């Protein structure tokens, strides 16, 4: 399986990569903003995307919409530090398959990915 990690923070990207590096994903790529994520998705066709919200150039929720417009079946897990409940609802409304609050842990991200990939 293929994973695309979208986050403008190198530390976050590394953290997610470390959390999921248990053999589930054969190939992992990264993008550092929403615009690059949309482009990379078209090329890479990942099974799952982890998407930060606050990023330069294009925010994560806009990227979620763009990706889903072209790929309605895309699985996108929005990972955000915005602990606002409205943000979580907004993410799901825009089509995200799940919402995960930072700081992430191995358990929390694995559980969220399990939920998304279970069907």
């Amino acid at each position, binding site marked *: 399986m293929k994973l695309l990690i979208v986050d403008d923070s190198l530390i976050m990207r590394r953290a997610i990569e470390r959390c999921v590096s248990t053999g589930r994903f054969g190939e992992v790529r990264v993008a550092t903003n929403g615009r690059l994520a949309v482009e990379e998705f078209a090329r890479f066709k990942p099974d799952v995307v982890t998407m930060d919200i606050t990023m330069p150039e294009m925010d994560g929720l806009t990227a979620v919409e763009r990706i889903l417009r072209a790929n309605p079946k895309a699985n996108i897990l929005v990972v955000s530090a915005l602990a606002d*409940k409205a943000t979580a609802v907004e993410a799901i409304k825009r089509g995200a398959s799940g919402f995960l609050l930072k700081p992430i842990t191995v358990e929390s991200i694995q559980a969220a990915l399990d939920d998304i990939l279970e069907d």
Partner: protein
Amino acid sequence: MIADQSPAQPAPTRGRRLLAPLVYLSLALLIAAGGYGIWTYTRDLARATDVNNKRINLAGRQRALSQRMTKALLAYDRDTRAQLPANAALGELSKVSGTFNAVIRGFDAGGTVPGTDGKEFLMPAVTDAEEKRIVRDALELWLPLYDRLQEVASGKASAEQLASAVDMARTRNVPIFDLMNDLTNRTEVTARASIASASTPRSVLIAIVSVAVFLIPGLYLWSRARAEGRRARAALGSLETTYAQLSTQSANLATAKAETDRIMETVQEGLMLIDANGIIGEHHSRELLAIFRQDQLAGLSLLNLLQRLLSEKMFNTTKDYFGLLFDANRKEKTVLKVNPLTDIEVNFPNPAGGFIHRYLGFSFRRIMDGDRVARVFVAVRDVTPQIELEKKLREAEKNKDRQLDILVGIVHVPPSELESFARLVETELDTINRTLRAEDFAAASTGAQIEALRERLKGVFRSVHNIKGNAALLQLSYFQKAADAFETKLAELLDHPVLNGDDFLSVVVAQAGLRSDLGDLQDLRAKLGGLRSAPAAHSQAALAPAGGALASQLRKLVEDAARDLVKSTQLNIDDFAVHTVAADRPDLVRDVLIQLARNSLAHSVESPAARVATGKPAAATLTIRGLPPTADGLVGLAFHDDGKGLDLERIRARAEASGLIAPGALVSPDELVSCIFEPGFSTAAQPGAHAGRGMGMDIIKSKVVDEAGGAIEVLSTPGRFCEFRVYLPAPAVAIS
């Protein structure tokens, strides 16, 4: 569940199903055969009747023929005797005797005979014993007569032959007539018998066929009736079963409903079903009414209810969330995870005025109908007690941390110092309280009133600043921070162009916070006092030389401030001088020296690099020394630093900016210097923990000049040094 409702009808067996057509087929065959039989019998009967009628007629005619024969013979005999032509009589005799002969022979042996209607008739031989006898008797009489008549009829008979014939005719005429009469009567009897015998089976057949003909519809109707009856019975049976089932079901439903009602009545949770429009269903728990403070909820929109209770942003999120709940394309698990209504704050209008704050916790479950989300089950709980408990726990946790902070801060402070600090804070808080309690605080409209308020605020500021300075002196960092936060609030207020009563609310709150901190400090101090050995505490308080203690505290204060400001210092204190001046007003002297030290470090002492660049040693030297008593009996202390001194240009700029002096006005350096004692005056670019609010000098002035009736002198050479000289009336102790 509702059981299979197909009636328990006994299905007709296969044989039974085949029997009915077989019966009908047999009956039809019977009718056909019977019909044919009737037809045959009828035809035969008609024939027999015809034959019998003809035989009766023929028998009857034989009687007449016998007479006509005798009459013709006698006529011929008479005419012959009279020599008259007798041809007609002869012809009649020949014809009639011939016919009679043919018919009597026909009766005897069967054969074709001339019928009464002139047509040939095939005569059957007689079968009846009586008829046979009659015919044999008749033939016995007839045949000899017929021979004589033949001779006569040939016309060649002699007179003897004629006479013999006439004799025989006369004797046999009557017996033959009687026999023929008997034959006729007998024939009538046998004919009737034969017709009767032929019509009996026909009648039987007719009866059978009639019965059969009536049997078919009868049977059909009977079977139909039976089937209908069976069906009716079956229907009735099934109806009874269904009724019984329905009764059981309705009983079960009633029980279930009663249970549900009981649950709905007693459950301590708001339970309801909502449809896609957010409309609340008919059945909900009673608790729901209590939670929403409504008399009636069924049929109302939950969204509309929430709209009145939630903030606009939260309501929009809720609306979106309801959309997700009813969108079957979104996974329920995902949607339930982002439930925004787990503990929302709602505000119910209070009938008594204002609002009632509550926290409600919602949970949701979808109810599917195929691929569609038909309803959503909603459970609501008033989670206010839990949330408030959590809040209290958090507060308690915070309070514990605060107390620990205070505790850690005070353990190193000698009890007497701590007591003196507590006293100072209390005094200042009382001052603040008095200031804030002033009645003219309520409504200030004129410029003069606003200015008066501002003056009062500045007074508060001085008190807080003094607390901050003392806290720094004793390294009570918790109080230092609290006072700093208070100062920040005050500074914001002082920046407001217009002040009103509400603006002071935050001041009152901050004051109360500080007082509560003071309470904690007092508590902890008491506890700590218990821990320390009482005599030691006493002796320390009694023996500690005021000057010595103050000197060491000042050293620590300067050390800390220098470290924070990344500066290097050396503090020299004339302990004796400080002790002398501070003898009967240690708090005042302490407060003044604190502010002077902080001011010096913040404004005069340069960074080590800057000092080295101007040829000075990296470490600045601060000196506190005694001053000789003045002529008017004032004693003094000098605070000297070898920093850059007062920056008169900057002071001027600031003074002009704050309207203390007119821009470009000609003012003496002394006048400029006096500006620094104005409340709120500071040349620092950014206010900080150590200086910059512009209140330090104000405190010194208010304490030394206004409170103690002393004087202040400032000496400064830019780039070289700065010295503040503080003069106070000689202490009573010193005088005595």
